[in-house]
């Protein structure tokens, strides 16, 4: 008749190596399956690339007449279609740009601070740009005023004037925190 008492732990430790290996290895492996599936889907943003709308990336923002003639910058909302995961939105604001006229030609600057991404303000009293978060100052042409903590000047955006008066801007966002502008894609 077999003993009712199990083997001592020490005795178990000396044999049945395959079963123990099987338990540890397979147990770990099957436990990792749900993590693997989850992490694979979590990494989805790294696999996705902006497919774009197939166009040249320029978006009509306004007309030249809407930009102050005296060279004062004005903020304009950039309106475009936007895909947000499972939704496609038509004609929604996707950001903003500052436009000003220099010798009659429009120039565009991104409103987002290259430091950490706050919305840069135009200060009429000082006639400059100012980031309300970490106090970086920029001149009207976007150049960083000495002493500011931003690693680079405000990001200029390409402009195309179409049909004589329409102002089209190649709107894109850039990685903050670097001394050179790296487009986010």
């Amino acid at each position: 008749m077999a003993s009712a008492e199990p083997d001592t732990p020490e005795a178990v430790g000396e044999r049945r190596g395959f079963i123990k290996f099987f338990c540890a290895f397979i147990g770990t492996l099957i436990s990792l399956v749900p993590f693997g599936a989850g992490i694979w889907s979590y990494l989805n943003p790294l696999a996705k690339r902006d497919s774009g709308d197939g166009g040249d990336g320029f978006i009509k923002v306004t007309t030249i007449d809407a930009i102050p003639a005296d060279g004062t910058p004005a903020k304009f909302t950039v309106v475009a279609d936007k895909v947000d995961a499972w939704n496609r939105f038509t004609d929604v604001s996707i950001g903003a740009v500052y436009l000003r006229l220099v010798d009659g030609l429009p120039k565009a600057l991104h409103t987002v601070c290259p430091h950490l991404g706050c919305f840069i303000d135009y200060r009429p009293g000082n006639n400059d740009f100012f980031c309300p978060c970490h106090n970086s100052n920029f001149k009207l042409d976007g150049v960083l005023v000495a002493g500011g903590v931003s690693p680079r000047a405000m990001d200029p955006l390409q402009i195309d004037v179409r049909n004589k008066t329409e102002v089209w801007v190649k709107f894109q966002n850039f990685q903050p925190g670097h001394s050179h502008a790296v487009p986010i894609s």
Partner: protein
Amino acid sequence: MKSLLDWIDHRTGVFQITKSVLFENIPGGSRWRYVWGSTLTFTIFVQFVTGVFLWMGYSASSGDAWESVNYIQNEMTGGWLLRGIHHWTAQFMPLLLLLHLMQVVIDGAYKAPREVNYWFGVLLLLLVLALSLTGYLLPWDQKGFWATRVATNLMNLVPFAGPEMQKLVVGGTEYGHHTLTRFFALHAGVLPGLLVLLIVGHIYLFRRHGITPAEPVIKRNAYFWPDQVFKDVVACLAVTVAVLGFVLWHHGAHLGAPADQSEPFSAARPDWYFLFLFQFLKLPFFAGENEVWGAIYIPGMAVGLICLMPFIGRWNLGHVFNVGIIFVFLGGAGALTYLAKREDVAGPNSAKYLKAVLDDARDAHRVTALAKDRGIESTALSLLKDDPKTQGARLFAQHCASCHRYDGHDGLAVELAKAVPLDELEKRTEMTSRFFSGDAVHPDWLARQSSTNEWQTVRSLLQVKAKGPFDVIASTKPKDAPEAPDLKGFATRQWIRDLLDPDKYISARYFGGTAHKDGDMYKKFLNRKVRRYDTEDHIMLDAIAVALSAQAKLPGQAADDQSDAALIRKGIEDLKDNIGCIDCHAFGEPDPDADGPDLTGYGSRQWIVDFVKNPEHEKFYPDNNDRMPAFGVKKILTDKEIGLIADWLRGDYFEPPAADPGH
């Protein structure tokens, strides 16, 4: 009953466990300084309970998050209380964590054999901060949105894989649905799960090693129950009372205007316990590429140093060093927090910061009222974008205020106070007042004596010690003098009556800054004729003002227009037959010879829209338009935008009932 309890105990051993928990020995007896761990456990319990109930009302998507939080806060029975408790408890937790950490370090409770438990505690501290950070975004309001952008952009600085990490946390390249779903999963799933694991480990190790008695031990040992439990309960009660006090004071928790990445928000700040880091990054040393030091390396080293305290504490003066370091850290963080707050309320750009706070509150109240009145068809943000009161004012500020004014400002001022005495005004400009008060006044904002039209900065009024009372608005004085009429009250009876006053007509409030001050209206009519009018003629002008204003069909004057039908008929008669307005203006039918604006439907929505589209149209100023752009013809503004401006000028928008407590 006893047999039932015995049965349960026999099957579960619950009484034995309870007994071992309650009858833990405390060397030196109970102390008030031991309460922080228990209060933290209690606040985490509160956060779990309120968080789960909030979860039942929350929807994590960029089109629903703000909307669902607004519903919880303003529509759901008891929602404001639930959200308020969750929010304000979260505000207290960092404070309790700091007190707990200080107690642990000062008492040397990090020393062997309690190192692992100490590290568990540090991890718990970091987890609670991560919970706060992820929770900040979830309402998807302006403050949370812009502040979280800063926080996630910091990840971009991490060496080697920063941009990829940011993309994973944000859920893509743009902030949207997946940012919220990921933050919410962290906030309500991953982080609380880790928190529970660590708390179980923390309490297990705490029980295993026992409490570290505060030296000197002068009292006799005692059990945890009931003396220490009593002190813990009193401390938890104090926390609860304090939290409820804040909840009642604020009627829940602040919810700003919906996130809008096209609208500036000059008050993007983290919660109070991250302000020191926010201020730290302003230091010139961290300019440019050195930012990574201020954002990642130095905070990382500080946390590393805190983790190394058990080893440092082994040296002769190690414990003294550790205690000193904790005080240095706390003192530095406290000083930076104070500087950040001070800069916001009394720094060179504080007027803008405080105005942004008020703008946000105004927009938040507005969108809440709109949502309550008409429901949300697509998103709350679209309610604001289609709202004349909000969007009309913004468009006016951008496109019209370089020449026109609206009550002396750009249309975006926030009214702060009516008839406030000078002494009171002075108090409200003080920094301490602004630190704590929501209705403070910045010295650079505008005030005017109640009987005048002229706005001046509060600062200049205080300097000359002018007599009060004053009305105060949050708006800074526009850089340039006005060049076109002030359109506050446009087409109202009073506005038209003042227009017919020769002196007011050529004042800056009307046409003093335009070529019209030298036009026929002034020279041939107002200056030549009206200045000689007798009382009877002025009564006719009064009637004309009423009649012309009725053409506008202003919603705010509808009742008066209805009751003054006879006066309006007389005014039209006077306008046509007695005063001679139709010598220069068309009225009722087209007049090709007229050289002044057509007065038919003057001030009506269609009239304003047509005028803004093309002031040089033959109905208005075909030959003598003075610099007013043809906003429609030149496609500066869309038809919808012009309509929003017209509706805003006419006051033709929804207003909630005055007695509504939500506003």
